[in-house]
């Protein structure tokens, strides 16, 4: 089951904050976050393995709520380099052969 991301697109001015949400109809084992710039490969940002875990990457952080089956990505004081499409990928079970199912993405545009 594909996770649902919201919003589908967001436009910010440099320095503003944004939150991207990812929710699943199935129980989650882990959530991955990636950013893809136009014409480039997706780049790994972070993975959250435990419920309630919050991880950070520069000014980008994320939370994972197992009970609500959702994760949120927080971008603070956005920079022009943050522009791109953000994808969450979910694993629904623990398995050494588990697969990641990606959402349809959130397009983030940062204006000077």
């Amino acid at each position, binding site marked *: 089951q594909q996770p649902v991301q919201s919003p589908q697109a967001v436009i910010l001015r440099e320095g503003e904050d944004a939150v991207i949400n990812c929710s699943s109809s199935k129980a989650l*084992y882990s959530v991955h976050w990636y950013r893809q710039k136009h014409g480039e490969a997706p780049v790994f940002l972070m*993975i959250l393995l435990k419920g309630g875990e919050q991880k950070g990457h520069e000014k980008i952080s994320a939370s994972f709520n197992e009970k609500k089956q959702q994760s949120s990505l927080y971008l603070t004081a956005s920079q022009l380099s943050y522009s791109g499409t953000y*994808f969450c990928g979910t694993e629904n079970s623990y398995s050494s052969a588990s697969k990641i199912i990606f959402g349809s993405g959130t397009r983030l545009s940062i204006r000077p």
Partner: protein
Amino acid sequence: DAGVTQSPTHLIKTRGQQVTLRCSPKSGHDTVSWYQQALGQGPQFIFQYYEEEERQRGNFPDRFSGHQYPNYSSELNVNALLLGDSALYLCASSLRGAKGNQPQHFGDGTRLSIL
């Protein structure tokens, strides 16, 4: 430290033909996953290879098949190409970990166009 490399970068085929895409994983990685990404969509999981065997498969027909070699490199084969197979095909490698899937490192992809 070489990252994930894919070849070719672009490919044009006609309906009914067959195609083979290649992927070399990041150094030290042993698991290769293949994804299909249509324009404006997220990557769709095709299958995953580990120890030369297909370990997981997404919702793709048997026309999509793969192989992994002892050096961990992998191929994706698609037979009887359809117009709908036009997409960016991404290869991602990872190191199998004790706690399930690990971060995946993506290649730049192969852009496949079907005429």
